[in-house]
C-alpha cells in the first residue's frame, strides 16, 4: 500500500460496527449473551438488546457484578460479551476479571468503548490510558486494539469462535477507514500497511491512520517510513517486529494509551530480547489527561500527526548517532 492522505478517507466509529456485528452474530449463535452496565447506547450493545431482548442483560451501574455474571454465564458454556467504557470495564472489576475470566480461561469477550483520551470532555476520570497494560499483564487474556471499523468487524467475526478471553478496545470517536474490505485479521499477526526503509512505526488504534498520514507527509521530506498495524497486542507478532527492526534499525511505537505498559512496552520487550534497536515510544506520557474537545485534547497531549512526526525524527536522530 502507498502512503495516503487520510483526511480524504471516510470515517466510522468502531462502536457502530460493534453494535451491527453483535446482531449478525446473534442471528447465527443462539448461545450468545450480551451484558452491559448502563451504557448500552454509548457502547452500542443496545442494538443487540433491540434484536434479542431475551439474551441481553443490563446489570445497572455495577461493573463488578457485570464481570461476575459474565463469568457465571461462561462457566455454563455460553459465549459472553460484556461492555462498558474502558475505564469501568477494565479498571473497577480488574481483580474479578483476573480471578474468573483470565484464571479459568473463560469464553468472555470484554469489549470496551471510550478507551484513551479521545473521550474528551469527560476528562481524566473517564480517559482510560492504562487498560492495555492492565489486560496485557493477565495470563490467558488476548488483547486487541483494532485500527478501523473494517478491522473491528473482522476481529469480532474471528474471535467470536475462539473460546478464550479477549479484551477488545475501541475509542469513542470516528476513525478513518484505512484497511481494504478484503483485509483479514489474524490473531498474533501484525500487518504491514506501508513498506519503508528508514524507520518503522508500529501503531494500534487510531494512531495507525495517523502513522499513515505522517508517512505520507514525511515522504515529501525524503523520509521513508514503514507503517505496521499491530492490532493484536497479545499475542504479539514477534517475528514481524524483529524483521522490521532489522530492516530500518529505528522503531517508533504509537498508541492512544500510556507509554507505560501498552504497545510500546510490548514492542520494547520483544526488541530487547531479540534484537536491541533504537526505540521511541509515542503515546500518553506518564500523566493524566484533561477535559476538552476530543481532538483538541489529543493534540494537547501530543497524540497528533505532528506529535508523531516529531517522535519519528527523534528516532532517526538517535539512529544517526548510534
Amino acid at each position, binding site marked *: 500500500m502507498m502512503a495516503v492522505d487520510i483526511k480524504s478517507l471516510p470515517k466510522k466509529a468502531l462502536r457502530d460496527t460493534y453494535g451491527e456485528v453483535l446482531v449478525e452474530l446473534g442471528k447465527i449463535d443462539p448461545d450468545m449473551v450480551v451484558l452491559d452496565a448502563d451504557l448500552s447506547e454509548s457502547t452500542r450493545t443496545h442494538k443487540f438488546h433491540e434484536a434479542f431482548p431475551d439474551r441481553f442483560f443490563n446489570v445497572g451501574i*455495577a461493573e463488578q457484578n457485570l464481570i461476575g455474571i459474565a463469568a457465571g454465564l461462561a462457566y455454563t458454556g455460553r459465549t459472553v460479551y460484556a461492555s462498558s467504557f474502558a475505564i469501568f470495564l477494565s479498571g473497577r472489576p480488574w481483580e474479578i476479571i483476573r480471578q474468573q475470566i483470565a484464571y479459568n480461561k473463560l469464553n468472555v469477550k470484554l469489549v470496551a468503548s471510550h478507551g484513551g483520551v479521545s473521550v474528551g470532555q469527560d476528562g481524566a476520570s473517564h480517559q482510560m490510558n492504562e487498560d492495555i497494560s492492565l489486560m496485557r499483564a493477565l495470563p490467558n487474556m488476548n488483547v486487541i486494539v483494532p485500527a478501523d471499523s473494517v478491522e473491528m468487524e473482522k476481529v469480532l467475526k474471528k474471535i467470536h469462535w475462539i473460546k478464550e478471553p479477549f479484551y477488545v478496545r475501541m475509542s469513542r470517536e470516528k476513525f478513518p477507514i484505512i484497511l481494504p474490505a478484503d483485509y483479514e485479521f489474524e490473531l498474533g499477526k501484525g500487518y504491514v500497511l506501508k513498506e519503508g526503509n528508514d524507520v518503522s512505526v508500529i501503531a494500534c488504534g487510531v494512531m495507525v491512520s495517523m502513522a499513515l498520514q505522517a508517512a505520507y507527509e514525511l515522504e515529501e521530506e525524503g523520509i521513508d517510513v514503514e507503517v505496521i498495524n499491530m492490532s493484536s497486542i497479545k499475542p504479539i507478532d514477534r517475528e514481524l517486529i524483529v524483521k522490521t527492526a532489522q530492516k530500518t534499525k529505528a522503531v517508533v511505537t504509537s498508541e492512544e494509551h500510556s507509554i507505560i505498559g501498552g504497545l510500546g512496552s510490548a514492542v520494547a520487550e520483544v526488541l530487547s530480547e531479540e534484537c536491541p534497536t533504537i526505540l521511541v515510544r509515542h503515546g500518553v506520557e506518564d500523566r493524566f489527561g484533561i477535559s476538552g474537545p476530543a481532538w483538541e485534547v489529543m493534540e494537547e497531549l501530543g497524540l497528533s500527526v505532528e506529535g508523531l512526526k516529531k517522535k519519528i525524527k527523534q528516532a532517526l536522530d538517535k539512529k544517526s548517532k548510534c
Partner: protein
Amino acid sequence: MRDIQQLKEIARQLRIDIVTMVYNAQSGHPGGSLSAIDILTVLYFGGFLRYDPTNPWWEDRDRFILSKGHASPALYSVLAKVGYIPHEELNTYRKTKGYASDGYSRLQGHPAWQGNRHGTPGAEASTGSLGQGLSIAIGQALSGKLANKNYRVYVMLGDGEVQEGMVWEAAMFAGHHKLDNLCAIVDNNNLQIDGDIRQIVNIHPLPDKYRAFGWHVIEIDGHDYNQIINAFEEATNTKGKPTMIIAHTVKGKGVSFMENNFKWHGVAPNKEQYEKAILELSAGGV
C-alpha cells in the same frame, strides 16, 4: 428564619448557570444537575454547610462531596456563587484552557479535588467514577471524629449510582460505626442513562434498605424547600446514626422539555433549545 423566596431565586440563577455551562461546552450533564440543585442551594445558602470561600482549607469546615460527579455543573455553579471561584470561570467548564496553574481548566468534566492540580477550590473529592463518594465521606467523617472536630460531612449520590456494590459496603460501615456526623442524600430522580431505574435494576425500597443498615432515613420531596430544610435540621440533630435523606426529584427540573426525560442525562442543548430553556428559567422567577 430562612428566606425561602430568596433561596428559590438563587436556585433559579444557578439553573441558568448550569444550562449555560453545558451549552457553552456543548457537552455535559444537565438532567442530574437540575434535579440536584435545589438541595445544594439549601445546603450552601440555607445556613447548613459551614465553609469559608476565602479559606478553602479551613480545617473545621463542613465537607460536601458530589459523588454523582457528572452533575459537576451544579457544584461549579454553587462554588462560583459563593465565591470560591470567579463567575466568569464557569466558561472554562470542560474546555482545554482555564485557570489552573498550568493553564488548563479547573472545571474538569467531573470534579477534581481542590488539592489536585486541575481541581476546583471548594471541591472536597475527585469523583466521576460512580460509587466512590460515600466511602470517601466516611473517611472524612472518621477523621473528624478522631480529631474531636465537630465538622459534618455531606455527600450526594445518584439513585442509579446506588446500584454500585461499593455504596452498600460503605453503608454497612457507616451504620456499624454510628457515624452521626455523616449525612448522605440520594437524588432519587428515577432515571439512569439507559432509562428508568425501576425497569433496569430496581433499587427500591431504599428507605427499608438503609434502615436495615443502621441509618436514620428521611424521605422528602427534593424540590420542596421546607422539606429540604427540615430534613437537614433533623439530620443535624440525629445522634448515634448516620442520616440518609432520600430526596424524590425530577431529572431536568425547571426546563420543561428536559424534565423526566432520560435522553437529557448527558447531552447539550442546541441554540434553539438553549434559548427556550433560558426563556423558561427567566420567566420562571419563582
